[in-house]
């Protein structure tokens, strides 16, 4: 492992991917919560013509120049989406689809034009399509670090305002916050998060970098702070992990590897995250059903006991109980559960009776049901 990180290129790539994961995880959390997951997709596709134009105008492939072009195009795309949604009957999804594909088409046209130029030094631009982490240079990573840190600083400074306008914008406006401005700032942060990652994972997959860490983190916590921190953490893990893996295994492109790592994290989180996870949910549902079933058997036993008023200790056949429920529920399991709770006991082979506590509980339940009727 140490030997691995001694490799200069890998160190740069892993650092870049990790950095990107942290920034897009943190900033992406707000985007996901504000239902802008797909806006992220539109912005990243729309960045392509911006990159091409920036290069055409400056003839420079300096990361900062291209990022600036990408950011401007991303911004323009957002504006276009908003205009279409507010000024026409086309809904959000349609506006995103149009802007995304048309901007991307324009980017493609520009790239093919660049390809034909004699000074075809555009080879570097191609990598923005699918990303090429292996080509990251120290300069690129430095630019990512500076811009990313700036974005995170803004997030920290305006944290409580951003939080409020995300959960209840009207209330924010009612207490005098400049909601429109804050909204613009937050969307700009999303644009930045996307733009700094394009070189590494490409325009097609970048939206996953924004959404997936947040989606995974959301499952583990119900607080915004921990969620954002966790999303950043997931981003780092997937970024570094993906970069290292793709450098060990031949012909394993970095971008898709990172995205699949993130998708795995999302899947695991959806399944096993405490409280929200599907596995826990199923477990709880099972428990609940067993409680309900046990209660039903308890009441059945009580009803049988009433028929033998003279002898409340009289044991009743399990088969009778099963017949009473028509095989709908697991009577044996319920009886054992009741026995465990001290509500029922076995009086002989396959025969059961209520304990004193069981009778009390049955009466309690009948009273309770009566109140609600």
């Amino acid at each position, binding site marked *: 492992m140490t030997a691995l990180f001694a490799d200069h290129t890998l160190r740069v790539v892993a650092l870049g991917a990790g950095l990107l994961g942290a920034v897009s995880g943190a900033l992406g959390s707000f985007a*996901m919560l504000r*239902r*802008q*997951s*797909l806006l*992220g*997709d539109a912005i990243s*596709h729309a960045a392509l013509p911006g990159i091409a134009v920036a290069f055409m105008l400056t003839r420079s492939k300096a990361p900062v120049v291209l990022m600036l072009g990408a950011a401007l195009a991303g911004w323009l795309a957002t504006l276009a989406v908003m205009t*279409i949604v507010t*000024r*026409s*009957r*086309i*809904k*959000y*999804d*349609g506006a*995103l*689809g*149009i802007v*995304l*594909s*048309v*901007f*991307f*088409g*324009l980017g*493609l*046209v*520009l*790239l*093919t*034009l660049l390809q*034909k130029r004699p000074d075809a030094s555009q080879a570097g631009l191609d990598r923005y*399509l*699918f990303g090429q982490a292996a080509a990251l240079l120290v300069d690129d990573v430095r630019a990512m670090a500076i811009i990313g840190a700036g974005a995170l600083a803004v997030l920290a400074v305006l944290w409580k305002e951003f939080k409020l306008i995300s959960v209840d914008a009207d209330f924010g406006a009612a207490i005098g916050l400049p909601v429109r401005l804050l909204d613009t700032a937050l969307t700009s942060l999303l644009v930045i998060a996307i733009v700094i990652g394009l070189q590494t994972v490409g325009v*097609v*997959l970048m*939206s*996953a970098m*924004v*959404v*997936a860490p*947040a*989606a995974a983190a*959301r*499952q583990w916590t119900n607080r915004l702070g921990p969620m954002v921190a966790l999303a950043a953490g997931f981003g780092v893990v997937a970024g570094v992990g993906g970069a290292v893996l793709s450098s060990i295994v031949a*012909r*394993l*492109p970095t*971008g*898709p*590897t990172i*995205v*699949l790592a993130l*998708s795995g994290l*999302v899947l695991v989180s*959806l399944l096993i995250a405490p409280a*929200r996870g*599907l596995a826990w949910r199923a477990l709880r549902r099972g428990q609940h059903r067993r409680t309900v079933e046990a209660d039903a058997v308890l009441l059945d036993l009580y009803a049988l006991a009433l028929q033998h008023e003279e002898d409340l200790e009289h044991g009743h056949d399990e088969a009778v109980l099963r017949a009473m429920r028509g095989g709908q529920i697991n009577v044996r399991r319920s009886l054992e559960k009741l026995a465990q709770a001290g509500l029922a006991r076995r009086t002989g082979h396959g025969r059961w009776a209520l304990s004193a506590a069981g009778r009390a509980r049955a009466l309690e339940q009948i009273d309770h049901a009566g109140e609600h009727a």
Partner: protein
Amino acid sequence: MSPQIEVQLIAVVVAVAAALPGTFLVLRRLALVSDAISHAILPGIVVAFFLVESLSSPVLLIAAAMTGLLTVVLIELLGQTRLLKEDASIALVFPALFSVGVLLISRYAGGVHLDVDAVLLGELAFAPFDRLVVAGHDLGAKALWSMTAILLLNVVLISVLYKELKLATLDREQAAVLGFAPATVHYLLMGCVSITAVGAFQAVGSILVVALMIAPPAAAYLLSDRLSVVLILGGVLGAASGVGGYWLARGIDGSIAGSMAVVAGLVFLGALLFAPQRGLAAQLHRRARQRWSFAERMLLVHLLHHERTPSAAEETAGHTVHRHLRWSERFTAEVIRRAEAGELLRREAGLLQLTERGRQIAQRALLELDERDGLGELGGRDRRRRAGRTIPGGAVEE
């Protein structure tokens, strides 16, 4: 047929085939599902390609259609957990599937003629070189045949299911009540979208399929309120984008697929700006025209409210009324002048008094509030909802 004509024909067929299911996507607010499907079919294409080693085999279509449906099902499953919002589900599923496709290609397809660029970006210019040859006869470009088949499939499916699709689009719940199975219709439509996307990917690439599926129908939707018109107009605008894109690409010597998307975007922009009733220009024009009549009605309503009230003297004096309405003095003077000219009000002892006609107009303005916005059949949903909202008693909530 010259390759030139053939390329344009393919472009037209692809565009029309895409616009048909695209119309329903736009109307059902599922536009981005096309984006998701067109990306996510990549692994399906790759796996099928490994099996049959050909890009034009029908097996590819079937595999991709299955993958497309799988995408839709996955998105819906994720949504049903209610752990994620729907847009997040979409944004998670298709990059994952797309990544699987890219990994498969780069791991196992070394040297084979299949690269990600080809799937994502397509290259229409090469389509005429892949010929369909049967028993020594050259029948034309394979892509033309396959896309025509897909177009026919779409036409047949949509004509057969027209009523159901329309109902499911306008009112999902009612469709279910009437015994149509919206779910079945939904999946049939999604199957259509998948097949069209995979058929088109060779020609225009998977991302630009989205442009052809969404932009022309959206433009048509700005131009008409009738579903049948939107469908046909969407096809026509799509075809125009195809041909226009081809010539643009020739003119600047750039990517044909990209140019088609750009032209489709321009067509949409044109509709957005200049649609006769809904366009931005028409909106501005209407607003300018309505500014005066709106202000006039406001003034009349204001006077009506203060007729014979204790504060009438203060509220309706010609020289103070602008303060109450918070208008500029000049603007107010002009509104008064116009209303006077129309004999809607007159001045009496410095106070503005409604004439009988003015009073009627003010009263009508208050009553007719709910009766505008008559849209065609496609506006019906919003209208019904609004009508529902006005039933008091709390029975109807949004």
